[in-house]
């Protein structure tokens, strides 16, 4: 049997350029950190801001990951994703308030257990809600972007209003569990404990997600489905089931993000999810719709940018992220790590 004429030389070359191409967005994070250092000057403030920027980025990533995958898999853009953030926050915080005795004592074990239970409750509720949302709101409008946007916005409004019905019209203030309060001092900089925890949780989740996507069959199906859904079906996989699974998981993650964001801000409102959607969209767009890695890098960039600029010129914080988005889209119109769509 004759082998194909070999294409090895070009192969290696393309690969090298592509590797560089892929590495560049990842390098943006350290570049931004260094730029932040130069602009801020004081190392201690810089360290504090960097940690809170990373913490914020991780939380945005947790909220954005589901949205971007759902879009990649089924071309569904869920403008109601923010509703899960709000509901997650309200459920989680209600559990924490109910477990007031556990959170009030300075016992790490009790505190963590309370937070854990709150997260489990929030994720369970938002996961189930995601399943219902997919069936009732999203399923009837597959393939029609315009209707999708309209209907999911409608869903967002209704869920937000239902939060008001259940939890009342006012925002709820909460304080973090005892052992998560306060800061540790490191190299003259005060770093809040909770932010370190948020960075840790975000990092672990990202790595776990990456593992699932890279190392498991279901992850393979998801990645292949993002690129070419019809082919995945033609190989014998029920993409719709996979999609529902991703939708539910993404909703539950948004709920987790909601709890974490609520504890970070120490106040929750029904509109918080809607507000977060702005950042989530920016992150999903600059990362490249459908790319989890892109969303991760994008979220870190947005979090860092927001914190650095808020320190330097508070009024421009949100605008700076719009500027970041503009700059990245000028550089790469499809986002930093665009998903190859076979069409």
């Amino acid at each position, binding site marked *: *049997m004759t082998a*194909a004429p070999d294409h090895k030389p070009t*192969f290696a070359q393309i*690969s090298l350029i592509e590797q560089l191409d892929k590495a560049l967005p990842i390098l943006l994070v350290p570049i931004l950190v260094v730029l932040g250092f130069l602009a801020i000057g004081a190392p201690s403030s810089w360290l504090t801001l960097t940690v809170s920027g990373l913490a914020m980025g991780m939380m945005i990533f947790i909220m954005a990951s589901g949205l971007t995958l759902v879009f990649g898999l089924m071309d569904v853009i869920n403008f109601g994703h923010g509703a899960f953030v709000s509901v997650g926050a309200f459920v989680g915080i209600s559990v924490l308030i109910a477990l007031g005795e556990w959170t009030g004592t300075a016992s790490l074990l009790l505190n963590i257990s309370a937070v854990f239970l709150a997260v489990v409750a929030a994720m369970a509720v938002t996961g189930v809600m995601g399943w219902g949302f997919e069936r009732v709101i999203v399923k009837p409008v597959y393939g029609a972007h315009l209707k999708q946007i309209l209907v999911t916005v409608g869903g967002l409004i209704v869920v937000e209003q239902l939060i008001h019905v259940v939890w009342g019209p006012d925002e709820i203030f909460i304080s973090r569990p005892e052992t998560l309060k306060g800061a540790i001092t490191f190299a003259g900089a005060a770093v809040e404990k909770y932010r370190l925890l948020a960075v840790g949780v975000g990092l672990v989740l990202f790595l776990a997600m990456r593992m699932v996507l890279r190392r498991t069959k279901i992850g*393979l199906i998801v990645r*292949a489905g993002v*690129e070419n859904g019809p082919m995945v079906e033609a*190989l014998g*996989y*029920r993409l719709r089931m996979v999609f529902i699974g991703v939708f539910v998981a993404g909703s539950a993650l948004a709920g987790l993000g909601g709890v974490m964001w609520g504890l970070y801000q120490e106040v929750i409102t029904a509109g918080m999810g809607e507000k977060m959607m702005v950042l989530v969209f920016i992150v999903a767009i600059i990362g490249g719709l459908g790319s989890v890695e892109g969303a991760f890098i994008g979220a870190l960039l947005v979090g860092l940018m927001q914190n650095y600029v808020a320190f330097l010129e508070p009024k421009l914080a949100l605008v700076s992220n719009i500027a970041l988005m503009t700059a990245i889209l000028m550089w790469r119109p499809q986002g930093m790590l665009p998903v190859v769509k076979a069409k």
Partner: protein
Amino acid sequence: MSDPILSLNAVHTDIAQYHILQGVDLAVPRGQVTMLLGRNGVGKTTTLKTIMGQWTAKSGEILFDGQDITRMPVSARARAGIGFVPEDMGIFHDLTVEENMMLGCASGPLDPNRKAWLLGAFPALGTFWHSEAGNLSGGQKQMLSIARAMAEDRELYLIDEPTKGLAPAIVSTMAQALRELKAQGASILLVEQNFSVAKALGDTAAVMDDGRVIWSGAMAELAENNDLQERLMGLSMEAH
């Protein structure tokens, strides 16, 4: 002869407002290579996609192994035993060759013997086993697409223009692999423009025009009859 593995009876398919398939009748005999021939745009690719379920037949029926699959979802057809190699190959560019092959096995891991056989047939895939499929050359992608469809034992393979734009050396590799596949007892429905390949591989042939099958019979009969070719396809295939 036993009943055909696949038969289409009066299948009509619309794409948007266009009426593409206008009553296709087609039978694919078991264990044979059936060539689906015809000029561009007569509905060959649409026929394959309708069999696979990527387009839904508006009317008519599709029987696979005696079972009516006309309204079955795509994935169920694949699990029932139909392998598909689309015209655009459907390679997952972001995934490695290995991962593409793993996805070819919907019901479990890739059997080592089958892997060895496939790598024997397509050595290039072994060389690039851990590379991203997007970096393969056109011919290698085509091999991957076919090997992926063969990764699991299936009864029927639908293959759309596997030799399009390929160098002659690769075409013969491909033809050899298809022959081996047939030797294992699989049935193949093959869309092919390259007449020498069609002649070499085909047992039976069906010629389409204007959304219908206008002639079917033994490949040898068609190959020997220039007048028939001229009449059916508007040109003599020998000219290619």
